[in-house]
């Protein structure tokens, strides 16, 4: 009897939940209608990113960063008299799910798209935005193909640019002559940077002594790669990977008594926030990042962000924040009004984006070219006493 009862209860629960889901669906068009009524003063920006799953930190940061920027702009009087409204949808960093998230935002009445957070999803959704002629600016989609269409712009550096910049930085500052690379061959981000780094390294007189790959399936044990790097006598280990894996590498290197300079790119940003990670291991780690929360110019942003969302902002949040400010500046320049249709808006924005210049968190005097690439200087930071010290 108990079993029957529990089964019944579970069934009722499921029913009420699905009913709830159905209810949401029904209210969505109503929202839409309300949106068109007040179309005179609302500009709707859609954001997608992984809000669930292993990459959730990036997606939430982008959603929060965009939200914070929109709030600030609204408080300062909005854009051309319009207030910005931001809505974030979960794309699970998946090229298939991002289409659903994007379509859902379109149903909501999105007029411009800030996304996607990750490269793979961004490339996939770009085909849809090109089809709809929807203006798209990706905060952190760094693969080359992300901005292949002319309606797409980005805030972060392209992968090859980061690889080239890293090699140049290491060469110019004479950090090391023998470099080992450990990279994730299953990630376009990582392999893209590595490829450009290897290309540039020979020009800078850097010798790549070990070039070791891992994949998403083997990202928990790096002893083989570290041993090879150590045997080859690497003075610097270049890690064009995300911070989660880097934290494991740092731990295992320290266990082996292997102590070269570690050098990462923007994916390394966030390493100090990894749970159960001894941050003293990251002392001396260098990374190429456009954003540091402790920098003078980003102090106010960091404080506001922590107050609003209870977490320290990372580079993804800063990218999204700059993306929304770029939209605001371009929209003002182009004289966008909320009653314009999406396609006309996109055409006007495309032209205006190349004419604006922004002093953002991720660079001063940022400008964009028609290909959608930003023009700003890469900055390197070193972790000293648990905080970033800009070099």
């Amino acid at each position, binding site marked *: 009897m108990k079993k029957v009862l529990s089964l019944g209860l579970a069934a009722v629960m499921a029913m009420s939940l699905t009913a709830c889901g159905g209810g949401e669906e029904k209210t969505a068009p109503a929202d839409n209608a309300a949106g068109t009524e007040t179309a005179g003063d609302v500009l709707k920006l859609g954001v997608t990113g992984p809000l669930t799953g292993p990459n959730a930190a990036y997606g939430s940061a982008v959603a929060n960063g965009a939200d914070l920027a929109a709030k600030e702009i609204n408080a300062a009087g909005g854009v051309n008299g319009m207030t910005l409204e931001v809505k974030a949808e979960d794309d699970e960093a998946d090229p298939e799910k991002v289409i659903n998230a994007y379509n859902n935002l379109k149903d909501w009445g999105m007029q411009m798209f800030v996304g996607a957070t990750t490269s793979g999803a961004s*490339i996939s959704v770009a085909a849809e935005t090109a089809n709809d002629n929807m203006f798209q600016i990706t905060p952190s989609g760094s693969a080359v193909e992300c901005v292949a269409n002319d309606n797409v712009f980005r805030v972060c550096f392209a992968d090859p640019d980061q690889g080239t910049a890293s090699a140049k930085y290491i060469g110019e500052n004479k950090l090391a002559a023998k470099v080992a690379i450990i990279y994730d061959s299953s990630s376009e981000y990582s392999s893209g940077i590595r490829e450009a780094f290897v290309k540039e390294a020979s020009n800078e007189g850097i010798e790549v002594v070990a070039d070791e790959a891992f994949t998403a399936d083997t990202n928990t044990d790096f002893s083989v790669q570290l041993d090879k790097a150590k045997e080859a006598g690497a003075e610097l280990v270049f890690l064009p990977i995300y911070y989660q894996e880097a934290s494991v590498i740092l731990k295992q290197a320290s266990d082996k008594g292997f102590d070269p300079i570690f050098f990462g790119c923007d994916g390394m940003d966030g390493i100090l926030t990894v749970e159960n990670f001894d941050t003293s291991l990251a002392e001396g780690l260098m990374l190429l990042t456009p954003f540091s929360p402790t920098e003078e110019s980003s102090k106010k942003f960091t404080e506001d962000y922590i107050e609003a969302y209870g977490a320290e902002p990372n580079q993804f949040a800063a990218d999204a924040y700059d993306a929304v400010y770029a939209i605001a500046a371009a929209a003002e320049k182009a004289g966008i009004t909320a009653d314009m249709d999406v396609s006309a808006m996109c055409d006007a924005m495309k032209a205006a984006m190349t004419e604006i210049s922004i002093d953002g968190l991720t660079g001063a005097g940022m400008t964009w070219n028609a290909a959608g690439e930003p023009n700003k200087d890469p900055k390197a930071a070193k972790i000293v006493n648990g905080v970033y010290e800009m070099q």
Partner: protein
Amino acid sequence: MKSKNKILVQNSITYGLVILCWILAEVLIRTGNMSSLMKGLLVPLCIYVILAVSLNLTVGILGELSLGHAGFMCVGAFSGAFFTKVMETVIPSVGLRFFLALLIGAAVAGIFGILIGIPVLRLKGDYLAIVTLAFGEIIKNLINVMYVGKDSTGFHFSTKDTLSLGLDESGVVLIKGAQGITGTPKAATFTIGVLLVLLTLFIVLNLINSRTGRAIMSIRDNRIAAESIGINITKYKLMAFAISAALAGVAGVLYAHNLSSLAATPKSFGYNMSIMILVFVVLGGLGNIRGSIIAAVVLTMLPELLRGLNDYRMLIYAVVLIVMMIFNSSPKAIEMRAVFMEKLRKNRKSTTKEAA
């Protein structure tokens, strides 16, 4: 005679259901009543239905547990997308290229099905499941290290990176390792998807109700008895396995031509995907083709329709899945359903009596 009629009626209901869904969707689109989310989901729904129906052939009809279905889908997707990319200049018509890609995807996946099937089908039960699981992972990892480029001198192949392909100026990289193939034309439409679903159903349902299908099911029910009456077990097993793989290949080609970027990520072609397809099949009922269709549609739409619940949607999806499984297959739940139906029937009888 009677049973034949019954089969005909049952099959017609299945076909009718699909056609009805198609008409309904077309009407909604034409009258502008369909949300963008639903429009975007239409082709993926067809893909998952084809996958579920084809896997049901292996799991439900042949009775072998396969966890490598996403592997066959992956083979189909990449061979189809590769063909479309290579033939871009030779065959300018996207529709024709897509049609040929479907045939090629099905053929390549089918061949892989036979190649894998020959050694693997000697195994039974859990062993077969584990080997097919490994096969799916191998395919995914092989594609992840594969770099293929084309220039004026022909094709170049590497397992390291795009630099080592050594392409000249005219060269284009076709498969870029873990980044896969980008820039496949979006040729898949809902109508093509539904036609492929109907084709899949036609193949599978006809197979089940044929002499061959009965031979396959006899292997499932009692292998020794089947062997003793002279049924060639290897032949029929391979046949079912290869057809199932080829249909998964078709779904893969459809998948590749619905998204502009195709990468063999663990999420899209890993064992998670294989297990998800298996969930469709088990939830819909082993050997129940119509059940597979319904389960695939419901479970694909559910997480999207729950979007309003934000972060909780994945949790709720899991809970709903568990409840549906229990409701469908637990003996107690089946008993309860029977009692409930009985009561309903009694009520109806009593009311008709009263009315009389």
